[in-house]
């Protein structure tokens, strides 16, 4: 950590000296931290508070950050711990885990979609807005796994470490989350008239 200046006063010597590297490494992660916070918190306001608290805690502890370490991952760990502490205080923790069986129904879902013509949804509708809306509705344990693996590119093992959960649990949350998202998208495709008869554009082979 560079020490550009040695400001003292308010007992903030270390953090003030660490300001330049904090600005360079941690602040640019605010968008990613916010995304992770959104996957954990129940609503936007809680997510914003959680993201802010995470950056503040990181700033206060910046002197403990090892130069060269993965800053985003460090921030995610702070964010998750902060979230868990708040959750414990609120005394609620819903436990609804899916099984590994979730992997297969996803494919069966696609097989059904092929039969009714909705599998074209990936090419026919603007997926981004529909997916973001579906993500907002996805329950917390599934969202966090989906965000970490699909959004941030972590491996199952890395996501499990960040969420402090067994890797099998994270995998089953990930699969369940993806399946719920696909169900939501397919329902939306049917709502806007994709599929159904499915015969106008050559139809399907089923």
């Amino acid at each position, binding site marked *: 950590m560079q020490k*550009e200046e040695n*400001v003292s006063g*308010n007992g*903030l010597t270390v*953090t*003030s000296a660490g*300001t*330049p590297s*904090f*600005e*360079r490494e941690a*602040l640019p992660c*605010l*968008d990613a*931290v*916010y*995304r992770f916070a*959104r996957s954990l918190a129940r609503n936007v306001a809680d997510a*914003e508070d959680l*993201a*802010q608290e995470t*950056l*503040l805690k990181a*700033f*206060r502890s910046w002197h403990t950050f090892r130069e060269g370490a993965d800053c985003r991952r460090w921030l995610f760990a702070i964010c998750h711990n902060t979230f868990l502490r708040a959750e414990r205080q609120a005394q609620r923790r819903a436990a609804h885990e899916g099984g*590994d069986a979730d*992997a*297969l129904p*996803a*494919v069966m879902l*696609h*097989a059904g979609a*092929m039969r009714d013509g909705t*599998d074209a949804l*990936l090419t026919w509708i603007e*997926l*981004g807005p529909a*997916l*973001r809306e579906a*993500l907002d509705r996805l329950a917390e344990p599934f969202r966090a796994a*989906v*965000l970490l*693996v*699909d*959004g*941030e*590119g972590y*491996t*199952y093992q890395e996501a499990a470490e960040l969420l402090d959960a067994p890797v099998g649990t994270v*995998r089953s949350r*990930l*699969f369940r989350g*993806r399946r719920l*998202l*696909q169900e939501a998208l397919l329902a939306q495709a049917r709502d806007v008239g994709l599929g159904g008869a499915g015969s106008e554009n050559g139809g399907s082979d089923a």
Partner: protein
Amino acid sequence: MPDGKLDCEAAMRRLWEYLDRELTGDTREAVRAHLHECSACYGHYEFERAFLAALGDAERERRAPESLHGRVLHALRSEGFVPRYGES
């Protein structure tokens, strides 16, 4: 799984892990070989690959609101943070 071959159901159970690059060695190779031979499963593979790509994009496009950036900077400043590069 005689001679390392997978049937459709077994291959599809591993599809997401395959796409996530979580499989290694013989299992990864067995799924790859099945997809190469089975056009029905290959169709599922393409669907899932496109879905996961769209999902990743949708996640990463989300940005923290401008107001939050301002709030965080304000809170950090009150703790001694002095920005140097990004703004005055």
